Protein backbone atom coordinates (compact mmCIF):
# COMPACT_ATOMS: atom_id res chain seq x y z
CA UNK A 1 0.00 0.00 0.00
CA UNK A 2 1.46 3.40 -0.95
CA UNK A 3 1.88 6.30 1.44
CA UNK A 4 -0.97 8.29 -0.12
CA UNK A 5 -3.47 5.54 0.65
CA UNK A 6 -2.09 5.06 4.15
CA UNK A 7 -2.46 8.79 4.68
CA UNK A 8 -6.10 8.59 3.61
CA UNK A 9 -6.81 5.82 6.11
CA UNK A 10 -5.08 7.75 8.89
CA UNK A 11 -7.22 10.79 8.09
CA UNK A 12 -10.39 8.67 8.19
CA UNK A 13 -9.34 7.22 11.55
CA UNK A 14 -8.98 10.72 12.96
CA UNK A 15 -12.41 11.70 11.65
CA UNK A 16 -13.93 8.58 13.19
CA UNK A 17 -12.31 9.31 16.57
CA UNK A 18 -13.69 12.88 16.48
CA UNK A 19 -17.14 11.53 15.64
CA UNK A 20 -16.96 9.12 18.58
CA UNK A 21 -15.82 11.95 20.86
CA UNK A 22 -18.76 14.07 19.80
CA UNK A 23 -21.28 11.31 20.47
CA UNK A 24 -19.83 10.32 23.85
CA UNK A 25 -19.85 13.97 24.92
CA UNK A 26 -23.54 14.35 24.02
CA UNK A 27 -24.75 11.18 25.74
CA UNK A 28 -24.64 9.70 29.26
CA UNK A 29 -21.40 7.97 28.27
CA UNK A 30 -19.99 5.27 26.08
CA UNK A 31 -17.17 2.78 25.82
CA UNK A 32 -14.70 5.28 24.44
CA UNK A 33 -11.43 3.59 25.48
CA UNK A 34 -12.05 0.35 23.58
CA UNK A 35 -13.67 2.21 20.69
CA UNK A 36 -10.43 4.14 20.23
CA UNK A 37 -8.26 1.03 20.41
CA UNK A 38 -10.33 -0.71 17.73
CA UNK A 39 -10.85 2.28 15.42
CA UNK A 40 -7.84 1.71 13.15
CA UNK A 41 -8.63 -2.00 12.83
CA UNK A 42 -12.17 -1.30 11.68
CA UNK A 43 -11.09 1.49 9.35
CA UNK A 44 -8.55 -0.82 7.69
CA UNK A 45 -11.23 -3.50 7.27
CA UNK A 46 -14.04 -1.29 5.96
CA UNK A 47 -11.93 1.09 3.86
CA UNK A 48 -9.34 -1.31 2.49
CA UNK A 49 -9.81 -5.04 3.06
CA UNK A 50 -13.47 -5.99 2.95
CA UNK A 51 -15.78 -6.42 -0.02
CA UNK A 52 -18.94 -4.59 0.92
CA UNK A 53 -21.53 -2.20 -0.45
CA UNK A 54 -23.01 0.43 1.90
CA UNK A 55 -25.96 0.86 -0.47
CA UNK A 56 -26.66 -2.86 -0.49
CA UNK A 57 -25.87 -4.04 3.04
CA UNK A 58 -27.19 -7.55 2.42
CA UNK A 59 -25.19 -8.05 -0.79
CA UNK A 60 -24.79 -11.80 -1.07
CA UNK A 61 -21.10 -11.61 -2.06
CA UNK A 62 -20.07 -9.28 0.77
CA UNK A 63 -17.50 -10.03 3.42
CA UNK A 64 -18.89 -10.21 6.95
CA UNK A 65 -17.78 -8.25 9.99
CA UNK A 66 -18.90 -9.41 13.43
CA UNK A 67 -17.94 -6.95 16.17
CA UNK A 68 -17.74 -9.46 19.00
CA UNK A 69 -16.57 -6.81 21.47
CA UNK A 70 -19.94 -5.18 20.99
CA UNK A 71 -19.47 -2.56 23.68
CA UNK A 72 -17.15 -0.76 21.27
CA UNK A 73 -20.01 -0.25 18.83
CA UNK A 74 -19.43 3.50 18.64
CA UNK A 75 -16.47 2.82 16.37
CA UNK A 76 -18.58 0.50 14.21
CA UNK A 77 -21.56 2.87 14.09
CA UNK A 78 -19.33 5.83 13.18
CA UNK A 79 -17.68 3.92 10.35
CA UNK A 80 -20.99 2.60 9.03
CA UNK A 81 -22.34 6.15 8.99
CA UNK A 82 -19.20 7.62 7.43
CA UNK A 83 -19.16 5.01 4.70
CA UNK A 84 -22.82 5.55 3.85
CA UNK A 85 -24.79 2.71 5.42
CA UNK A 86 -27.12 5.15 7.17
CA UNK A 87 -27.52 8.87 7.72
CA UNK A 88 -26.58 10.94 10.75
CA UNK A 89 -30.00 10.63 12.41
CA UNK A 90 -29.01 7.12 13.54
CA UNK A 91 -25.82 8.09 15.31
CA UNK A 92 -27.21 11.31 16.74
CA UNK A 93 -29.92 9.25 18.46
CA UNK A 94 -27.39 6.88 20.09
CA UNK A 95 -28.63 5.85 23.55
CA UNK A 96 -31.28 8.58 23.62
CA UNK A 97 -34.88 7.77 24.58
CA UNK A 98 -36.53 6.37 21.46
CA UNK A 99 -33.14 6.26 19.72
CA UNK A 100 -32.25 4.10 16.73
CA UNK A 101 -28.93 2.79 18.05
CA UNK A 102 -28.25 1.40 21.52
CA UNK A 103 -25.19 0.77 23.65
CA UNK A 104 -24.53 -2.57 21.97
CA UNK A 105 -25.11 -3.59 18.33
CA UNK A 106 -28.42 -5.21 17.57
CA UNK A 107 -29.01 -6.87 14.21
CA UNK A 108 -31.80 -5.13 12.39
CA UNK A 109 -31.38 -1.78 14.15
CA UNK A 110 -29.49 -0.35 11.18
CA UNK A 111 -28.06 -1.55 7.85
CA UNK A 112 -24.59 -3.06 8.18
CA UNK A 113 -24.96 -4.50 11.68
CA UNK A 114 -24.40 -8.19 10.99
CA UNK A 115 -25.01 -9.63 14.46
CA UNK A 116 -26.36 -8.83 17.89
CA UNK A 117 -23.40 -8.72 20.25
CA UNK A 118 -22.54 -7.28 23.63
CA UNK A 119 -22.30 -10.38 25.71
CA UNK A 120 -18.65 -11.29 25.22
CA UNK A 121 -17.56 -14.61 23.79
CA UNK A 122 -20.39 -15.02 21.26
CA UNK A 123 -19.02 -13.52 18.05
CA UNK A 124 -16.43 -16.13 17.18
CA UNK A 125 -18.93 -19.00 17.23
CA UNK A 126 -21.38 -17.02 15.12
CA UNK A 127 -18.53 -16.25 12.72
CA UNK A 128 -17.69 -19.96 12.63
CA UNK A 129 -21.28 -20.74 11.64
CA UNK A 130 -21.28 -18.13 8.88
CA UNK A 131 -17.91 -19.37 7.63
CA UNK A 132 -19.11 -22.99 7.70
CA UNK A 133 -22.25 -22.07 5.74
CA UNK A 134 -20.09 -20.44 3.06
CA UNK A 135 -17.89 -23.53 2.90
CA UNK A 136 -20.97 -25.71 2.44
CA UNK A 137 -22.23 -23.38 -0.30
CA UNK A 138 -18.72 -23.19 -1.84
CA UNK A 139 -18.73 -19.38 -1.66
CA UNK A 140 -15.58 -17.27 -1.31
CA UNK A 141 -16.82 -14.56 1.09
CA UNK A 142 -14.46 -13.80 3.96
CA UNK A 143 -15.71 -13.57 7.53
CA UNK A 144 -14.00 -11.27 10.02
CA UNK A 145 -14.59 -11.37 13.77
CA UNK A 146 -13.15 -8.53 15.84
CA UNK A 147 -12.60 -9.48 19.46
CA UNK A 148 -11.05 -8.05 22.59
CA UNK A 149 -8.16 -9.54 24.52
CA UNK A 150 -10.25 -9.50 27.71
CA UNK A 151 -12.98 -11.32 25.83
CA UNK A 152 -10.60 -14.22 25.42
CA UNK A 153 -11.17 -15.01 29.10
CA UNK A 154 -14.46 -16.59 27.97
CA UNK A 155 -14.35 -20.37 27.60
CA UNK A 156 -16.64 -20.25 24.58
CA UNK A 157 -13.88 -18.45 22.65
CA UNK A 158 -11.59 -21.45 23.03
CA UNK A 159 -14.38 -23.78 21.92
CA UNK A 160 -14.71 -21.64 18.80
CA UNK A 161 -10.95 -21.59 18.21
CA UNK A 162 -10.85 -25.39 18.27
CA UNK A 163 -13.90 -25.67 16.02
CA UNK A 164 -12.56 -23.29 13.35
CA UNK A 165 -9.28 -25.14 12.93
CA UNK A 166 -10.99 -28.54 13.14
CA UNK A 167 -13.31 -27.54 10.28
CA UNK A 168 -10.48 -25.85 8.31
CA UNK A 169 -12.32 -22.54 8.13
CA UNK A 170 -9.65 -20.61 6.22
CA UNK A 171 -12.33 -18.12 5.16
CA UNK A 172 -12.47 -16.95 8.79
CA UNK A 173 -10.19 -14.27 10.24
CA UNK A 174 -10.24 -13.06 13.82
CA UNK A 175 -8.67 -9.77 14.77
CA UNK A 176 -7.82 -9.43 18.44
CA UNK A 177 -7.83 -5.82 19.59
CA UNK A 178 -5.05 -6.49 22.07
CA UNK A 179 -5.20 -3.37 24.21
CA UNK A 180 -4.18 -5.44 27.24
CA UNK A 181 -6.75 -3.87 29.53
CA UNK A 182 -10.06 -5.15 30.80
CA UNK A 183 -12.62 -3.10 32.68
CA UNK A 184 -10.81 -2.91 36.01
CA UNK A 185 -7.18 -3.81 35.43
CA UNK A 186 -4.57 -5.23 33.07
CA UNK A 187 -5.58 -8.50 31.45
CA UNK A 188 -2.33 -9.99 32.76
CA UNK A 189 -3.37 -9.13 36.32
CA UNK A 190 -6.86 -10.60 35.95
CA UNK A 191 -6.77 -13.73 33.80
CA UNK A 192 -3.76 -13.78 31.53
CA UNK A 193 -4.14 -15.03 27.97
CA UNK A 194 -0.40 -15.12 27.31
CA UNK A 195 1.52 -16.47 25.54
CA UNK A 196 -1.21 -15.60 23.05
CA UNK A 197 0.71 -16.22 19.83
CA UNK A 198 1.82 -19.64 21.03
CA UNK A 199 -1.64 -20.54 22.25
CA UNK A 200 -3.33 -19.60 18.99
CA UNK A 201 -0.65 -21.37 16.95
CA UNK A 202 -1.05 -24.51 19.03
CA UNK A 203 -4.82 -24.32 18.41
CA UNK A 204 -4.14 -24.61 14.68
CA UNK A 205 -4.39 -21.00 13.56
CA UNK A 206 -2.25 -18.99 11.11
CA UNK A 207 -1.13 -16.28 13.54
CA UNK A 208 0.08 -12.81 12.58
CA UNK A 209 1.08 -9.96 14.87
CA UNK A 210 0.84 -6.27 13.95
CA UNK A 211 0.83 -2.78 15.39
CA UNK A 212 -2.92 -2.21 15.57
CA UNK A 213 -2.51 1.49 14.92
CA UNK A 214 -0.30 1.10 11.85
CA UNK A 215 -2.49 1.02 8.75
CA UNK A 216 0.26 -0.33 6.53
CA UNK A 217 0.80 -3.34 8.80
CA UNK A 218 -2.91 -3.85 9.37
CA UNK A 219 -3.81 -3.77 5.68
CA UNK A 220 -1.00 -6.09 4.63
CA UNK A 221 -1.87 -8.59 7.33
CA UNK A 222 -5.63 -8.52 6.80
CA UNK A 223 -5.53 -8.61 3.01
CA UNK A 224 -3.17 -11.54 2.51
CA UNK A 225 -5.68 -14.33 2.29
CA UNK A 226 -4.15 -17.68 3.06
CA UNK A 227 -6.08 -19.56 0.42
CA UNK A 228 -3.29 -22.11 0.09
CA UNK A 229 -3.59 -23.23 3.70
CA UNK A 230 -6.46 -24.77 5.61
CA UNK A 231 -5.86 -22.68 8.68
CA UNK A 232 -8.10 -19.87 9.88
CA UNK A 233 -6.24 -16.59 10.39
CA UNK A 234 -5.68 -14.83 13.71
CA UNK A 235 -4.35 -11.28 13.65
CA UNK A 236 -3.13 -10.07 17.02
CA UNK A 237 -3.30 -6.29 16.76
CA UNK A 238 -1.38 -4.64 19.59
CA UNK A 239 -3.29 -1.51 20.47
CA UNK A 240 -3.63 1.17 23.11
CA UNK A 241 -6.90 1.63 24.93
CA UNK A 242 -7.96 5.26 24.52
CA UNK A 243 -5.52 5.71 21.60
CA UNK A 244 -5.16 9.32 20.49
CA UNK A 245 -6.08 11.14 23.70
CA UNK A 246 -3.23 11.41 26.19
CA UNK A 247 -5.28 11.32 29.40
CA UNK A 248 -7.28 8.30 28.22
CA UNK A 249 -4.46 6.10 26.96
CA UNK A 250 -4.01 2.96 29.09
CA UNK A 251 -6.21 4.35 31.87
CA UNK A 252 -8.85 1.79 32.97
CA UNK A 253 -11.27 4.54 34.04
CA UNK A 254 -11.85 5.38 30.37
CA UNK A 255 -13.33 1.97 29.65
CA UNK A 256 -16.73 3.64 30.01
CA UNK A 257 -17.14 7.23 31.10
CA UNK A 258 -18.84 10.49 30.32
CA UNK A 259 -16.69 13.43 29.22
CA UNK A 260 -16.58 16.69 31.17
CA UNK A 261 -16.50 19.89 29.05
CA UNK A 262 -12.83 20.55 29.76
CA UNK A 263 -11.92 16.94 28.96
CA UNK A 264 -13.82 17.19 25.71
CA UNK A 265 -11.88 20.30 24.72
CA UNK A 266 -8.50 18.75 25.43
CA UNK A 267 -9.40 15.55 23.59
CA UNK A 268 -10.79 17.53 20.65
CA UNK A 269 -7.53 19.45 20.31
CA UNK A 270 -5.31 16.40 20.68
CA UNK A 271 -7.23 14.62 17.94
CA UNK A 272 -6.65 17.59 15.67
CA UNK A 273 -10.24 18.76 15.61
Amino acid sequence: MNSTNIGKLEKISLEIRLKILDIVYKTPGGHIGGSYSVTDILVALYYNTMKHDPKNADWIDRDYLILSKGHCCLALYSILEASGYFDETFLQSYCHDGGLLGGHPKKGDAPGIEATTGSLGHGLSIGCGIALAHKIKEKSNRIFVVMGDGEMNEGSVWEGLMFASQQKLNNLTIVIDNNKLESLDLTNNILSIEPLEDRLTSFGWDVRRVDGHNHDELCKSLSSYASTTDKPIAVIADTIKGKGVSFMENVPMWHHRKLKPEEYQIAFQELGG
Partner: protein
Amino acid sequence: MRNAFNDVLIDIARKDESLVLLVGDIGFRVFDDFRDEFPDRFYNVGIAEANMIGVAAGLAMTGMKPVVYTIIPFLVMRAFEQIRVDLCIQDLPAILVGVGGGLSYDTLGPTHHAIEDLAIMRSLPNMQVLTPCDPQEVVMTFREGFSHKGPTFLRLGKGGEENLLTKNTIKDRVPGKINTIKTGRDILFICCGPILKETQEAVDILSSDYDCGLINIHSLKPLDTQSLADNFRNVNLIVTVEEHSIIGGVGSAVAEIIAQSTINVQLLMIGIPDIVTKQIGKRDYLLKGHNMDSKSIAKRVHSLIVNRRN
Protein backbone atom coordinates in the same frame (compact mmCIF):
# COMPACT_ATOMS: atom_id res chain seq x y z
CA MET B 1 -38.58 -41.14 19.86
CA ARG B 2 -34.93 -40.88 18.79
CA ASN B 3 -35.44 -43.23 15.88
CA ALA B 4 -38.58 -41.41 14.75
CA PHE B 5 -36.63 -38.18 14.88
CA ASN B 6 -33.84 -39.66 12.79
CA ASP B 7 -36.32 -40.90 10.17
CA VAL B 8 -38.06 -37.55 9.74
CA LEU B 9 -34.71 -35.77 9.74
CA ILE B 10 -33.48 -37.81 6.77
CA ASP B 11 -36.78 -37.38 4.97
CA ILE B 12 -36.65 -33.58 5.23
CA ALA B 13 -32.90 -33.42 4.46
CA ARG B 14 -33.54 -35.19 1.15
CA LYS B 15 -35.97 -32.45 0.14
CA ASP B 16 -34.35 -29.41 1.72
CA GLU B 17 -30.63 -28.82 1.20
CA SER B 18 -30.52 -26.14 3.86
CA LEU B 19 -30.91 -28.63 6.72
CA VAL B 20 -27.65 -29.02 8.67
CA LEU B 21 -27.33 -31.32 11.68
CA LEU B 22 -25.09 -30.39 14.61
CA VAL B 23 -24.61 -32.89 17.42
CA GLY B 24 -22.68 -32.50 20.64
CA ASP B 25 -21.01 -35.91 20.56
CA ILE B 26 -24.28 -37.56 21.55
CA GLY B 27 -26.31 -40.21 19.71
CA PHE B 28 -24.13 -43.28 19.27
CA ARG B 29 -25.00 -44.83 15.87
CA VAL B 30 -28.31 -42.93 15.83
CA PHE B 31 -27.19 -40.64 13.01
CA ASP B 32 -24.97 -43.01 11.03
CA ASP B 33 -27.44 -43.10 8.12
CA PHE B 34 -27.77 -39.33 8.08
CA ARG B 35 -24.00 -38.85 8.18
CA ASP B 36 -23.44 -41.37 5.40
CA GLU B 37 -26.05 -39.79 3.13
CA PHE B 38 -25.25 -36.13 3.92
CA PRO B 39 -21.58 -35.98 4.96
CA ASP B 40 -21.31 -32.24 4.28
CA ARG B 41 -24.37 -31.53 6.41
CA PHE B 42 -23.46 -33.51 9.53
CA TYR B 43 -21.14 -32.00 12.13
CA ASN B 44 -20.20 -33.51 15.45
CA VAL B 45 -19.03 -30.26 17.02
CA GLY B 46 -17.72 -31.98 20.13
CA ILE B 47 -18.50 -31.43 23.76
CA ALA B 48 -18.70 -27.68 23.34
CA GLU B 49 -22.34 -26.67 23.55
CA ALA B 50 -21.90 -22.89 23.79
CA ASN B 51 -19.98 -22.91 20.52
CA MET B 52 -22.52 -25.28 18.99
CA ILE B 53 -25.35 -22.79 19.53
CA GLY B 54 -23.28 -19.92 18.14
CA VAL B 55 -22.41 -21.97 15.08
CA ALA B 56 -26.10 -22.77 14.63
CA ALA B 57 -26.88 -19.05 14.78
CA GLY B 58 -24.24 -18.27 12.16
CA LEU B 59 -25.60 -21.00 9.89
CA ALA B 60 -29.15 -19.70 10.30
CA MET B 61 -28.00 -16.14 9.56
CA THR B 62 -26.84 -17.29 6.14
CA GLY B 63 -29.94 -19.19 5.08
CA MET B 64 -29.20 -22.65 6.47
CA LYS B 65 -31.61 -24.44 8.81
CA PRO B 66 -29.60 -25.94 11.67
CA VAL B 67 -30.90 -28.79 13.79
CA VAL B 68 -29.00 -29.04 17.06
CA TYR B 69 -29.06 -32.27 19.03
CA THR B 70 -27.76 -33.21 22.44
CA ILE B 71 -28.87 -34.10 25.98
CA ILE B 72 -31.21 -31.45 27.37
CA PRO B 73 -29.26 -30.07 30.36
CA PHE B 74 -26.17 -29.54 28.22
CA LEU B 75 -28.23 -28.06 25.40
CA VAL B 76 -30.47 -25.59 27.20
CA MET B 77 -28.69 -25.00 30.49
CA ARG B 78 -24.99 -25.02 29.61
CA ALA B 79 -25.60 -22.89 26.53
CA PHE B 80 -28.56 -20.91 27.83
CA GLU B 81 -27.11 -17.47 27.19
CA GLN B 82 -26.12 -18.37 23.64
CA ILE B 83 -29.70 -19.54 23.07
CA ARG B 84 -31.04 -16.33 24.58
CA VAL B 85 -28.80 -13.91 22.66
CA ASP B 86 -27.79 -15.66 19.45
CA LEU B 87 -31.05 -17.45 18.66
CA CYS B 88 -33.91 -15.73 20.51
CA ILE B 89 -32.91 -12.07 20.44
CA GLN B 90 -31.91 -12.48 16.79
CA ASP B 91 -35.05 -14.63 16.19
CA LEU B 92 -33.32 -17.23 14.03
CA PRO B 93 -34.77 -20.46 12.62
CA ALA B 94 -32.88 -23.17 14.51
CA ILE B 95 -34.37 -26.30 16.05
CA LEU B 96 -32.94 -27.42 19.35
CA VAL B 97 -33.75 -31.09 19.76
CA GLY B 98 -33.19 -32.09 23.36
CA VAL B 99 -33.02 -35.75 24.24
CA GLY B 100 -33.78 -37.07 27.71
CA GLY B 101 -36.85 -35.10 28.75
CA GLY B 102 -37.90 -35.50 32.37
CA LEU B 103 -36.47 -38.51 34.16
CA SER B 104 -35.78 -40.57 31.06
CA TYR B 105 -32.03 -40.64 31.74
CA ASP B 106 -33.13 -42.23 35.01
CA THR B 107 -30.12 -44.05 36.47
CA LEU B 108 -27.66 -41.47 35.14
CA GLY B 109 -28.82 -39.20 37.92
CA PRO B 110 -29.80 -35.58 38.43
CA THR B 111 -27.03 -34.15 36.20
CA HIS B 112 -28.78 -35.78 33.26
CA HIS B 113 -32.41 -35.36 34.31
CA ALA B 114 -34.26 -32.56 32.51
CA ILE B 115 -36.84 -31.18 34.89
CA GLU B 116 -36.35 -27.41 34.59
CA ASP B 117 -36.04 -27.10 30.81
CA LEU B 118 -39.64 -26.23 30.00
CA ALA B 119 -39.64 -23.38 32.52
CA ILE B 120 -36.39 -22.04 31.13
CA MET B 121 -37.27 -22.31 27.46
CA ARG B 122 -40.81 -21.03 27.98
CA SER B 123 -39.43 -17.79 29.42
CA LEU B 124 -37.52 -16.84 26.27
CA PRO B 125 -39.15 -14.43 23.80
CA ASN B 126 -39.49 -15.89 20.28
CA MET B 127 -38.83 -19.45 21.48
CA GLN B 128 -41.37 -22.09 20.44
CA VAL B 129 -41.59 -25.05 22.86
CA LEU B 130 -42.87 -28.38 21.52
CA THR B 131 -43.47 -31.47 23.64
CA PRO B 132 -44.36 -34.56 21.59
CA CYS B 133 -45.84 -37.43 23.54
CA ASP B 134 -44.89 -40.37 21.32
CA PRO B 135 -42.86 -41.28 18.20
CA GLN B 136 -45.73 -40.37 15.89
CA GLU B 137 -45.94 -36.90 17.38
CA VAL B 138 -42.17 -36.46 17.16
CA VAL B 139 -42.51 -36.64 13.39
CA MET B 140 -45.37 -34.16 13.33
CA THR B 141 -43.85 -31.66 15.75
CA PHE B 142 -40.46 -31.78 14.05
CA ARG B 143 -42.05 -30.92 10.71
CA GLU B 144 -43.94 -28.09 12.42
CA GLY B 145 -40.80 -26.83 14.10
CA PHE B 146 -38.79 -27.00 10.90
CA SER B 147 -41.21 -24.71 9.10
CA HIS B 148 -41.16 -22.19 11.97
CA LYS B 149 -39.42 -18.87 11.21
CA GLY B 150 -37.84 -18.56 14.67
CA PRO B 151 -36.15 -20.82 17.23
CA THR B 152 -37.78 -24.03 18.44
CA PHE B 153 -37.09 -26.30 21.40
CA LEU B 154 -38.28 -29.85 20.79
CA ARG B 155 -38.27 -32.09 23.85
CA LEU B 156 -37.73 -35.79 23.27
CA GLY B 157 -37.71 -38.70 25.67
CA LYS B 158 -34.77 -41.04 25.47
CA GLY B 159 -35.88 -43.87 23.27
CA GLY B 160 -38.14 -46.90 23.31
CA GLU B 161 -41.34 -44.94 23.93
CA GLU B 162 -44.50 -46.55 22.59
CA ASN B 163 -47.10 -44.88 20.41
CA LEU B 164 -49.91 -43.45 22.53
CA LEU B 165 -52.05 -41.44 20.13
CA THR B 166 -54.78 -43.33 18.29
CA LYS B 167 -55.66 -42.81 14.64
CA ASN B 168 -58.67 -40.75 15.68
CA THR B 169 -56.75 -38.43 18.00
CA ILE B 170 -54.13 -37.93 15.30
CA LYS B 171 -56.86 -37.16 12.79
CA ASP B 172 -58.27 -34.48 15.09
CA ARG B 173 -54.87 -33.01 15.90
CA VAL B 174 -54.26 -29.43 14.76
CA PRO B 175 -50.69 -28.03 14.97
CA GLY B 176 -50.33 -25.60 17.86
CA LYS B 177 -53.74 -26.48 19.32
CA ILE B 178 -54.64 -28.63 22.29
CA ASN B 179 -55.62 -32.18 21.49
CA THR B 180 -58.66 -33.48 23.36
CA ILE B 181 -58.19 -37.19 23.83
CA LYS B 182 -61.26 -37.65 26.01
CA THR B 183 -64.01 -35.36 27.21
CA GLY B 184 -65.36 -35.42 30.78
CA ARG B 185 -67.38 -33.23 33.14
CA ASP B 186 -65.84 -33.91 36.58
CA ILE B 187 -62.07 -33.81 36.22
CA LEU B 188 -59.95 -32.48 33.38
CA PHE B 189 -56.45 -33.94 33.07
CA ILE B 190 -53.87 -31.94 31.12
CA CYS B 191 -50.43 -33.27 30.31
CA CYS B 192 -47.58 -33.10 27.84
CA GLY B 193 -44.93 -35.55 26.71
CA PRO B 194 -44.64 -39.31 27.29
CA ILE B 195 -46.16 -38.99 30.78
CA LEU B 196 -49.43 -39.11 28.81
CA LYS B 197 -49.16 -42.89 29.24
CA GLU B 198 -49.32 -42.76 33.04
CA THR B 199 -52.00 -40.07 32.86
CA GLN B 200 -54.18 -42.15 30.56
CA GLU B 201 -53.85 -45.11 32.91
CA ALA B 202 -54.81 -42.89 35.86
CA VAL B 203 -57.86 -41.72 33.94
CA ASP B 204 -58.82 -45.36 33.32
CA ILE B 205 -58.51 -46.15 37.04
CA LEU B 206 -60.68 -43.18 38.02
CA SER B 207 -63.27 -43.61 35.31
CA SER B 208 -65.45 -45.95 37.37
CA ASP B 209 -66.07 -43.13 39.86
CA TYR B 210 -65.57 -39.94 37.88
CA ASP B 211 -66.21 -38.56 34.43
CA CYS B 212 -62.66 -37.64 33.40
CA GLY B 213 -61.47 -35.60 30.42
CA LEU B 214 -57.92 -35.65 29.03
CA ILE B 215 -56.06 -33.06 26.97
CA ASN B 216 -52.60 -33.53 25.46
CA ILE B 217 -50.50 -30.44 24.82
CA HIS B 218 -47.80 -30.68 22.17
CA SER B 219 -47.20 -26.92 21.94
CA LEU B 220 -46.45 -25.47 25.34
CA LYS B 221 -45.49 -22.22 23.65
CA PRO B 222 -47.35 -20.79 21.92
CA LEU B 223 -50.07 -22.22 24.12
CA ASP B 224 -53.65 -22.59 22.94
CA THR B 225 -54.91 -20.55 25.91
CA GLN B 226 -58.34 -19.74 24.57
CA SER B 227 -59.28 -23.37 23.99
CA LEU B 228 -57.93 -24.32 27.41
CA ALA B 229 -59.92 -21.56 29.12
CA ASP B 230 -63.06 -22.70 27.31
CA ASN B 231 -62.52 -26.21 28.67
CA PHE B 232 -61.81 -24.97 32.19
CA ARG B 233 -65.29 -23.46 32.54
CA ASN B 234 -66.99 -26.84 32.36
CA VAL B 235 -65.19 -28.86 35.05
CA ASN B 236 -64.81 -28.94 38.84
CA LEU B 237 -61.17 -29.97 39.03
CA ILE B 238 -58.15 -29.60 36.75
CA VAL B 239 -55.17 -31.92 37.17
CA THR B 240 -51.92 -31.15 35.35
CA VAL B 241 -49.39 -33.95 35.00
CA GLU B 242 -45.87 -33.29 33.78
CA GLU B 243 -42.47 -34.97 33.92
CA HIS B 244 -40.97 -31.67 34.98
CA SER B 245 -40.61 -29.53 38.07
CA ILE B 246 -43.92 -28.21 39.33
CA ILE B 247 -42.32 -24.78 38.90
CA GLY B 248 -42.67 -23.24 35.46
CA GLY B 249 -44.05 -26.04 33.30
CA VAL B 250 -47.52 -27.10 32.19
CA GLY B 251 -49.05 -26.68 35.65
CA SER B 252 -47.71 -23.15 35.90
CA ALA B 253 -48.95 -22.33 32.41
CA VAL B 254 -52.44 -23.55 33.32
CA ALA B 255 -52.33 -21.65 36.64
CA GLU B 256 -51.42 -18.48 34.74
CA ILE B 257 -54.51 -18.88 32.56
CA ILE B 258 -56.80 -19.48 35.54
CA ALA B 259 -55.29 -16.64 37.59
CA GLN B 260 -55.88 -14.15 34.79
CA SER B 261 -59.49 -15.23 34.21
CA THR B 262 -62.77 -15.22 36.12
CA ILE B 263 -62.86 -19.02 36.13
CA ASN B 264 -63.39 -20.57 39.55
CA VAL B 265 -61.86 -24.03 39.44
CA GLN B 266 -59.49 -26.03 41.62
CA LEU B 267 -56.08 -27.00 40.21
CA LEU B 268 -53.93 -29.95 41.29
CA MET B 269 -50.40 -29.76 39.88
CA ILE B 270 -48.66 -33.13 39.68
CA GLY B 271 -44.99 -32.97 38.81
CA ILE B 272 -41.56 -33.33 40.30
CA PRO B 273 -41.37 -31.41 43.57
CA ASP B 274 -38.82 -28.66 44.12
CA ILE B 275 -36.10 -31.02 45.33
CA VAL B 276 -32.98 -32.67 43.94
CA THR B 277 -33.77 -36.28 43.12
CA LYS B 278 -31.59 -38.45 45.35
CA GLN B 279 -33.18 -41.79 44.52
CA ILE B 280 -31.43 -44.12 42.11
CA GLY B 281 -33.41 -46.34 39.77
CA LYS B 282 -35.21 -46.76 36.45
CA ARG B 283 -37.73 -44.21 35.25
CA ASP B 284 -40.74 -46.17 36.55
CA TYR B 285 -39.12 -46.42 39.98
CA LEU B 286 -38.39 -42.69 40.06
CA LEU B 287 -41.90 -41.80 38.91
CA LYS B 288 -43.31 -43.93 41.69
CA GLY B 289 -40.94 -42.26 44.15
CA HIS B 290 -42.40 -38.91 43.15
CA ASN B 291 -45.98 -40.29 43.30
CA MET B 292 -46.30 -39.85 39.56
CA ASP B 293 -47.02 -43.44 38.47
CA SER B 294 -50.57 -44.02 37.31
CA LYS B 295 -51.80 -45.55 40.58
CA SER B 296 -50.30 -42.74 42.64
CA ILE B 297 -51.79 -40.10 40.34
CA ALA B 298 -55.25 -41.70 40.66
CA LYS B 299 -54.86 -42.01 44.42
CA ARG B 300 -53.83 -38.35 44.83
CA VAL B 301 -56.79 -37.14 42.78
CA HIS B 302 -59.25 -39.36 44.61
CA SER B 303 -57.91 -38.29 48.01
CA LEU B 304 -58.23 -34.63 47.09
CA ILE B 305 -61.86 -35.06 46.10
CA VAL B 306 -62.71 -37.09 49.22
CA ASN B 307 -61.02 -34.52 51.46
CA ARG B 308 -62.85 -31.73 49.68
CA ARG B 309 -66.20 -33.42 50.36
CA ASN B 310 -65.31 -33.78 54.03
